[in-house]
């Protein structure tokens, strides 16, 4: 007996002219256009309750979002905490991250910070103390503070934008770095601009409707 169904074979059928890229966006069939990943900071105000950090980190791992750092801490309101995430994704991925975060019930509001937002990270760098004067000079150059010293080691605290920390670590490496601990980035919007606050709920609802059309600018870290 005949197996299968009748009808024109695949090669006999008309084919459409168009094509989509991997992100489901219609593109000129002649060009291979994909969005480049960009680094950005997303701030989320969440209910300060057990499990919320694992909700957020679990979301990132199971949806394969690339995160560079994730920090959490209390806010001025003891019932709320702020989570700051540095992500590196193409625009559609960043859009998804914001939307998926908003879906979590304990999440109050979510916002992607402007490139000019204040961003800071703290690092503790423990180096060998063979050349204490030079260590102190480098620490001073980066506005660092020696928080511990003994005959063998000195530990310097540095705060600043990611690039500054990295430059400092690079410079300290000449002394022999024993250990480093970094906090990951925390950030706030400038001036009267609210970072991610309940009052931005209206903005969030508005963003739900509109495609976020962010310029492909690499957000510069401030110093």
């Amino acid at each position, binding site marked *: 007996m005949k197996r299968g169904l009748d009808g024109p*074979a695949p090669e006999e059928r008309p084919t459409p002219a168009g094509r989509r890229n991997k992100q489901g966006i219609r593109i000129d069939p002649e060009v291979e256009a994909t969005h480049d990943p960009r680094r950005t900071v997303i701030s989320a105000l969440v209910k300060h309750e057990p499990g919320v950090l694992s909700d957020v980190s679990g979301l990132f791992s199971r949806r394969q979002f690339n995160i560079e750092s994730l920090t959490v801490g209390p806010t001025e309101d003891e019932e709320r905490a702020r989570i700051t995430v540095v992500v590196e994704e193409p625009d559609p991925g960043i859009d998804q991250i914001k939307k998926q975060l908003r879906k979590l019930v304990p999440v109050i509001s979510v916002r992607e910070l402007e490139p000019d937002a204040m961003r800071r990270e703290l690092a503790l760098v423990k180096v060998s103390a063979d050349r204490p004067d030079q260590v102190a000079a480098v620490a001073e150059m980066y506005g660092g503070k020696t928080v511990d010293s003994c005959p063998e080691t000195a530990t310097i605290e540095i705060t600043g934008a990611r690039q500054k920390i990295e430059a400092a670590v690079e410079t300290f490496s000449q002394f022999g770095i024993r250990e480093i601990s970094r906090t990951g980035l925390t950030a706030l919007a400038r001036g009267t601009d609210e970072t991610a606050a309940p009052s931005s709920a209206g903005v969030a609802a508005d963003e739900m409707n509109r495609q976020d059309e962010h310029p492909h600018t690499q957000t510069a870290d401030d110093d």
Partner: protein
Amino acid sequence: MSERAAKVTPTEADEQDDDQITDSAAPDAATDDTESATATTPTPVTNGAQSVVRALENAGVEYAFGVQGGAIMPVYDALYDSEIYHVTMAHEQAAAHAADAYGIVSGEPGICLATSGPGATNLVTGIADADMDSDPLVALTGQVPTEFVGNDAFQETDTTGVTKPVTKDNTFASDSDRVGTDVSEAFALAREGRPGPTLVDLPKDVTNGETETEPDEPKTPDTYHVQERADAEIVAAAAERLENAARPVMLLGGGVIKGEASEACREFAIEHEIPVVTTMPGIGAFPEDHELSMEMAGMHGTGFANMAITHCDTMLAIGTRFDDRLTGGIETFAPDAEIIHIDIDPAEISKNIYADYPLVGDAETVVDQLSAAVETSPEAKKWRAQCQQWKSDYSMAYDAPEDEPVQPEFVVEALDEATADDTIVTTGVGQHQMWACQYWTYTEPRTWVSSHGLGTMGYGLPAAIGARLAADDDQDVVCIDGDGSFLMTLQELSVAVRENLDITVAVLNNEYIGMVRQWQDAFFEGRHSASDYHWMPEFDKLAEAFGAAGFRIDDYDDVAETIEAAIDYDGPSVIDVHIDPEANVYPMVPSGGDNGQFALTEDQL
């Protein structure tokens, strides 16, 4: 941290000592806010478990599905005095599937219960299934007493941790005064917005703990927002696009049915004469016997549906998440189409397929908005004629010679013919499920009950139990199952017999994991690794051993008569249908393939 500080009552914490709550338990701290709640209820609650059951009663729950066990015993004790009818299942997975199907058919969250540890982990498959299909479901799990949590106590599992990725939301109840409201909130969250499964983990000391606090009415937490109406500007732009479409298609997903938008979509499609394609969960949203129906698209969708979505220039997609089984390869999905996407979940917009016109909102509300904005129907006469041409070019007609083994398509059509239009069909997962999609003509929403996103073999029978209790008494419930799927949950026949549930199970038996065998033939050089059972129990006799009616079909001559007898039987019946073991499902788009290049025969793959 939280206002929900854990309140441990150590005297009641012993796992074995659950007979009595002593009067010496610490007096409740929250008696001051009970005055408002007790006035309307005849019997005030006295402990957390009663508050849990009261929350379900307040929500209008009529049925619950579950399995008893140590840590959930206080809740079951409270159920003993309740009007809620509890169906004891043979396995917790089946409780979750039954509750899931109950939710699909009734539109209200289905309730399942299980104890801690293995009870809770057995629910997980069913919860994950509900999560993938956005089915409203509330799972209540027992948990070891709070002071033992984290100590690897007997039957302890981190249930909220395990289920977090597969629930819409879950909660660890930490306060007897609050536990009823936790359940109310879980119920509201399961139902509101995009539905989904929620879970409340119930430590035994919290359910046993004294409280007089009545639960609040079901209400979502204040951080949960649902947008009902779409942005008017985008609606206007989308309407203009539709008016100017030359090749429009409507793609209806499961969200149309969940959002009660089937009627609005039908009116819209018919008024503007737009061909309609559905996803698998969208089956029933549009009558398949209507001229405009192109039926289901995707991997095993009809050829004409796949031609329509491949060649359309405008797609009005409603309540669909553009799953890979629908889209095939993203690059070739509706590549000429501007997409108008209506969904209540903003995260679905442009997740897989970019939406040119993103419309976030409730399906019915937004279709009404769109309907009001569209002034002229698209000029698409030629396109409609093309669609009709595809319907005849790629007809689903199959070969069924008398001297060959029974073809499964014929059995599905015979079952459809023997039952009324409003009959509910449940299925397992695999070839039989695809034949049930393709060869049954669905005309009403909430009559197709299946495991779509998760693809859970064994879903069919427990789903039929849940669907039976949610359906009208005069509605038939038919489970079209596969032999492999049936074997995974057939212990639930004991429940169907005990509860005397009128369901008919038709097992399309080919003694294979048939879909795997089909793929092995197509992509693994016919090497039937672990897909060939060689032997199956006699399902008709097995049914009889359970106390159900058993039937068997071997030839075409038996089909109509046997089906009639099985449907007529007042109670659970099982037909063991010995189908052609070599039968395959076509059309077929290989995983990640081009929908327009669907194969009609194996050599086209």
